[in-house]
């Protein structure tokens, strides 16, 4: 290697080619560890005098950290941020995830000093405003679900499921129903449903839904049997096929007669909010995803929050602590105050910042605004379903709730799969829909536009989907298998990534 090459190892001195992949405005951004280690630290402290060093390099030796300057750090993270795709950058129709716009008024309210700069161990008398927010939120959630008992602590949807099923388990335990060991779960359920039931010690009995996409009374009766061993049922309504469970009232009557509780997965509450109260169709316990229905940031943008709401009959068993109001004073339930509770799920009181944002969302929309949320969400999904029905195979007859569902059936005849279509959407600057879920449909494409997308964005999505369908019909298969070409990393090898994952950085 010549001296010239050593001065600049970004260039191959023989071919005069630049070695890295930075082109146009796509930066080939290495990890900070991979940057050249130089003596340009972002801080400049004088060496301590008179005392031996007990920390840092002197005590621990050289641990190989890069010493980078402030402008290098700023560029590193800004460049990484430009590689991110989020709801703030474009259309994000990820089914079952409700990627709606996060209103900035929520952020403004969450940054009010009295909410942002308090500590969970402060005396209750000094955080009355924060407790009032949580108490009001409990009230809104109780009103919207028709379920009066609300626990705000679960930190995400699956955590809420755990809280809900633990509540059911605790109720059966204290009622002496040791013979009730079975949880009924339809095969279209989110995978977290049977996983949660199994974690709580229940056996899973599957209700088949493949024929119609719904739980039918006949299929339910067969799964229920005499009902003696059935502790409960976990159903998402509307379900993961985007359909409302039309027989649910009759099914829940049968379940209740057998002494079982109805857990409703609230993942799809955006289709119902403000329109119907789940308590009215027999739900005993339900979690709500504040980060979906109530617009708090998620998917890399913020923590989740999955409060549970329960019927009066299950109220004694929900996790602690609840926020209570006595006269004009708010307080947290104390340890041991309610001995029937199923336990404590989390340190402190849950994701308080999300509680502020969710309440901000509800207050800014009002009851009438929330009703319009679900109406517009359902309208948008049905618009997509109707617009694409000739280009993509719809496995079930609508009307849909807040999600459109198609399969790869027409495209597969030409050698194009759901995965290829998802990669094609990336080529056209969009986040793909949910793929290969629900499992009851082969090559599923589950599309959730949410109510916050306008007609322009949805029409562009429809146009791109129609273009991809036309390309598939014309047999341009090779192009599909190489999508995306314009994204920074092109087509990834998902099989090798899963079989031989690199989970730890190592020096090249």
């Amino acid at each position, binding site marked *: 290697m010549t001296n010239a090459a050593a001065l600049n190892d970004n260039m191959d001195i023989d071919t005069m080619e630049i070695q890295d992949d930075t082109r146009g405005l796509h930066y080939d951004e290495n990890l900070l560890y991979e940057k050249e280690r130089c003596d340009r630290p972002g801080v400049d402290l004088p060496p301590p005098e008179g005392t031996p060093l007990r920390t840092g390099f002197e005590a621990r030796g050289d641990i190989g950290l890069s010493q980078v300057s402030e402008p290098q750090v700023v560029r590193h993270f800004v460049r990484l941020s430009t590689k991110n795709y989020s709801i703030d950058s474009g259309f994000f129709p990820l089914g079952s995830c409700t990627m709606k716009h996060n209103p900035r008024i929520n952020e403004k309210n969450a940054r009010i000093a009295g909410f942002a700069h308090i500590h969970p161990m402060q005396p209750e008398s000094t955080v009355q405003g924060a407790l009032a927010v949580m108490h009001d939120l409990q009230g809104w959630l109780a009103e919207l679900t028709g379920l009066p008992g609300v626990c705000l602590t679960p930190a995400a949807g699956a955590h809420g499921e755990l809280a809900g099923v633990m509540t059911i388990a605790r109720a059966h335990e204290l009622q002496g129903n040791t013979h009730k060991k079975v949880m009924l779960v339809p095969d279209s359920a989110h995978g977290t449903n049977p996983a949660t039931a199994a974690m709580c010690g229940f056996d899973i009995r599957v209700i088949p839904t493949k024929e119609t996409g719904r739980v039918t009374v006949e299929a339910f009766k067969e799964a229920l049997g005499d009902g003696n061993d059935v502790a409960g049922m976990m159903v998402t309504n509307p379900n993961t096929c985007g359909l409302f469970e039309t027989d649910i009232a009759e099914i829940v009557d049968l379940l209740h007669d057998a002494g079982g509780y109805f857990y409703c997965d609230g993942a799809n509450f955006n289709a119902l909010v403000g329109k119907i109260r789940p308590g009215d169709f027999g739900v005993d316990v339900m979690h709500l995803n504040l980060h979906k229905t109530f617009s708090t940031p998620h998917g890399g943008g913020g923590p989740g929050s999955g409060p549970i709401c329960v019927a009066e009959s299950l109220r004694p068993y929900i996790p602690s602590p609840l926020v209570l109001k006595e006269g004009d004073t708010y307080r947290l339930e104390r340890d041991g105050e309610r001995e029937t509770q199923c336990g404590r799920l989390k340190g402190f009181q849950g994701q308080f910042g999300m509680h502020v944002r969710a309440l901000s969302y509800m207050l800014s929309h009002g009851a009438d605004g929330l009703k319009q949320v679900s109406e517009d969400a359902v309208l948008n999904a049905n618009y997509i379903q109707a617009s694409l029905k000739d280009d993509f195979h719809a496995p079930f007859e609508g009307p849909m709730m807040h999600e459109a569902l198609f399969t790869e059936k027409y495209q597969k005849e030409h050698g194009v799969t759901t*995965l290829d279509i998802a990669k094609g959407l990336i080529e056209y600057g969009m986040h793909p829909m949910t793929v*290969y879920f629900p499992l009851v449909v082969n090559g599923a494409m589950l599309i959730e536009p949410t109510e916050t997308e306008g007609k322009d964005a949805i029409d562009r999505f429809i146009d791109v989907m129609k273009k991809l369908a036309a390309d598939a019909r014309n047999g341009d298969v090779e192009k599909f298998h190489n999508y995306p070409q314009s994204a920074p990393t092109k087509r990834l090898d*998902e*099989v090798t990534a*899963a*079989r031989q994952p690199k989970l730890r950085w190592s020096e090249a």
Partner: protein
Amino acid sequence: MSNIKYTEDHEWIKVDGDTAWIGITTYARHALGDLVYIELPETGRQIAKGDDFAVVESVKAASEIYTPVTGEIVEVNDNLQDNMDDLKEDIDTGWIVKVKMTDDSEASALMDKAAYDSFVEGLE
């Protein structure tokens, strides 16, 4: 090939005396896509008809594999762990477990090749 039977959950079984070899069908293999992980059971485990005894994970989803017969797992094809592409409708290399059956009428009640083929056709 008349001693090969099929299930509605897309497993094949080969009956050899009181032993059943169990694997998954070509249809199942295509539906799964590229495999990334397989969880195999321990030898000696008792399984009842309808129990899941193994899990295969693909780039699309994780799926349980169910036994159509009751009995004891007497042999496990550990070779699949490192050679996942061998998991297919191939009697010699694609079997997952061998089960010593307690009731061979369970196996004879399953579909034969022709019945299974028309069952699969009905799914499309």
